[in-house]
């Protein structure tokens, strides 16, 4: 229903956030997009959402698919409500009227039907046909102007659907309407990605730029760009409280007692170095009553449970206090994944989060330049939600440069998002591979930055009591000669 400010939410997930709170009562909006962009579904979705609120919606078609076919398609959508038709949602055709009586005849149909049906939402599907029927630009402008007058006097919000769009042209109706929403589809390699862009919204701030959307059996779901949505976190961060254990005793000690509550810690290292094990220890390292979650792109929940069992970590006993969320990188959309992640965190009251493979986010988009600000916004929101996060990041599998054990470990893009950075290394010494760990960064804390050797045993990562074993390994590597490939490069920023 309408709010006190004279506007109402469309009910389309994500759209109202982009519109700064919805559309205005009695406003007139153009929704445009190429055939197949989903204009008809969006128009119906808005109508049924309003009908569900007790308002009356009217859908007028010109040269569009038949009502029977349209209703047949909409029946498959979860928002469709057969009981709403014809009292709260009705369909009428007006092409013949337009053809016989011109734009004036169509205006008569709109005026009469809106009044008779007490419609507060109108969708006019096929504005391009009106465009083609208009004998002059002036006649089209007069049509839009009269429609605006009708919309205002009847307090009926109107959506005009059209397939016409030329980014360089400025059709007269664009300057006259209250809002202009465009649905687009673009190819990235062989993958098609849909995006929505609001070009204009009178009387309100709106979220500019393109936002990904999907069409499923639930209709449209639009995913505002995370860095735009969370330009500032949704709530104020209150980073106080006791220090949080990372679940690995020796590491807590090296960090001076653990990590700050609501902080972000990145554990980076090559495949097989123990990152996911560290993540599972962090996941199960808090109080049993504390909601925790592991979000990952690679290992599915079954695989993680088996891994935790084999490490004798108490994942199973945490029951529903631990959420395992797996999103393969197949056809996922960056902002969709982040939206689902944040939504699950809010829903479950998660306080301890593992992101297994934070570099996976960059593989979900071709717009690599976004990733820095995306991660920054995401991590700021996690802090604001009171979540303490441990994220793993994979580096290339390479040996150590003798005498320069940290050479090539690229922290670019991580410092801005992480208070703490822990590096895991695989050090090949003759026929043996050793695991080593060092703390590269710990914000505002006295840290033991000396390297430690560690093993993965029952219970997870176990650090040697002191740095001397690591020292011996590094000395021996220096004496055995250079490693074959001296670079480990974390590809977070997409360079």
């Amino acid at each position, binding site marked *: 229903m309408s709010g006190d400010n004279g506007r109402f939410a469309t009910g389309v997930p994500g759209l109202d956030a982009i519109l700064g709170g919805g559309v205005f009562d009695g406003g007139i909006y153009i929704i445009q997009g190429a055939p197949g962009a989903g204009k008809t579904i969006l128009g119906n979705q808005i109508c049924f959402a309003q009908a569900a609120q007790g308002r009356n919606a009217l859908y007028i078609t010109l040269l569009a698919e038949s009502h029977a076919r349209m209703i047949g398609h909409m029946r498959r959508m979860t928002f469709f409500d*057969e009981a709403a038709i*014809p009292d709260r949602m009705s369909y009428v055709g007006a*092409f013949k009227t337009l053809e016989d009586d011109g734009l004036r005849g169509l205006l008569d149909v709109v005026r009469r039907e809106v009044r008779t049906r007490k419609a507060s939402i109108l969708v006019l599907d096929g504005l391009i046909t009106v465009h083609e029927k208009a004998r002059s630009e002036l006649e089209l402008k007069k049509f839009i102007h009269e429609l605006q007058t009708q919309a205002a006097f009847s307090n009926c919000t109107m959506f005009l659907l059209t397939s016409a769009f030329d980014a360089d042209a400025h059709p007269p109706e664009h300057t006259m309407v209250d809002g202009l929403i465009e649905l687009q589809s673009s190819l990235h390699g062989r993958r098609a990605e849909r995006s929505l862009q609001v070009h204009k919204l009178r009387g309100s701030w709106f979220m500019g730029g393109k936002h990904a959307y999907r069409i499923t059996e639930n209709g449209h779901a639009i995913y505002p760009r995370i860095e735009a949505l969370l330009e500032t976190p949704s709530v104020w961060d209150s980073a106080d409280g006791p220090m949080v254990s990372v679940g690995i005793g020796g590491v807590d000690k090296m960090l001076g007692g653990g990590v700050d509550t609501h902080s972000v810690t990145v554990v980076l290292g090559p495949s097989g170095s123990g990152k996911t094990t560290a993540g599972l220890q962090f996941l199960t390292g808090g109080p049993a009553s504390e909601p925790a979650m592991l979000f990952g792109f690679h290992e599915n929940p079954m695989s993680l449970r088996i891994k935790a069992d084999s490490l004798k970590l108490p994942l199973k006993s945490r029951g529903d206090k631990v959420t395992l969320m797996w999103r393969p990188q197949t056809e996922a959309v960056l902002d969709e994944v982040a939206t689902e992640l944040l939504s699950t965190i809010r829903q479950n009251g998660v306080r301890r989060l593992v992101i297994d493979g934070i570099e996976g986010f960059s593989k979900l988009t071709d717009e690599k330049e976004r990733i820095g600000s995306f991660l920054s916004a995401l991590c700021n929101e996690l802090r604001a939600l009171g979540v303490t996060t441990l994220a793993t990041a994979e580096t290339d599998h390479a040996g150590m440069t003798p005498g320069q054990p940290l050479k090539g470990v690229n922290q670019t893009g991580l410092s801005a998002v992480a208070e703490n950075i822990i590096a895991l290394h695989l050090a090949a010494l003759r026929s043996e591979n050793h695991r080593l760990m060092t703390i590269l960064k710990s914000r505002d804390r006295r840290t033991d930055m000396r390297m430690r050797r560690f093993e993965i045993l029952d219970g997870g990562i176990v650090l040697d009591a002191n740095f001397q074993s690591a020292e011996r390994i590094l000395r021996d590597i220096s004496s055995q000669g250079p490693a074959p490939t001296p670079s480990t490069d974390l590809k977070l920023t997409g360079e």
Partner: protein
Amino acid sequence: MRTVLIVEDEWAIADWLEVLLSEYAFNVLVAGNGREALDILHRDTPDLVLTDFMMPFLDGAGLIAAMGQDERLRSIPVVVMTSLLEHVVRDRAGHFRAYLRKPFREADLMKIIGEIFPDEA
């Protein structure tokens, strides 16, 4: 030759029905909504009315009600063609002879017409 009045706001459906029924040797009249249909009914008395339900100006329920109040038109059989469920239409409209769920096929329509005019079948 029997006369059928088609009342349909979707021009493509109206056109298709007009051609189809002409091929079956009906005399066909076409109206774009209930109001246009009443205009036609003031001067013509068709043997059958095929009407859509949701239409501008005057819908199927309004047309059926108006026909019911006119002694000359009351006995004309009416077939409602709509995407709506039959009970939804029956709850909102007075008496009509038959219901045809859209989208329908030629055979569905001709079966109903055959039942109304058995001699023509």
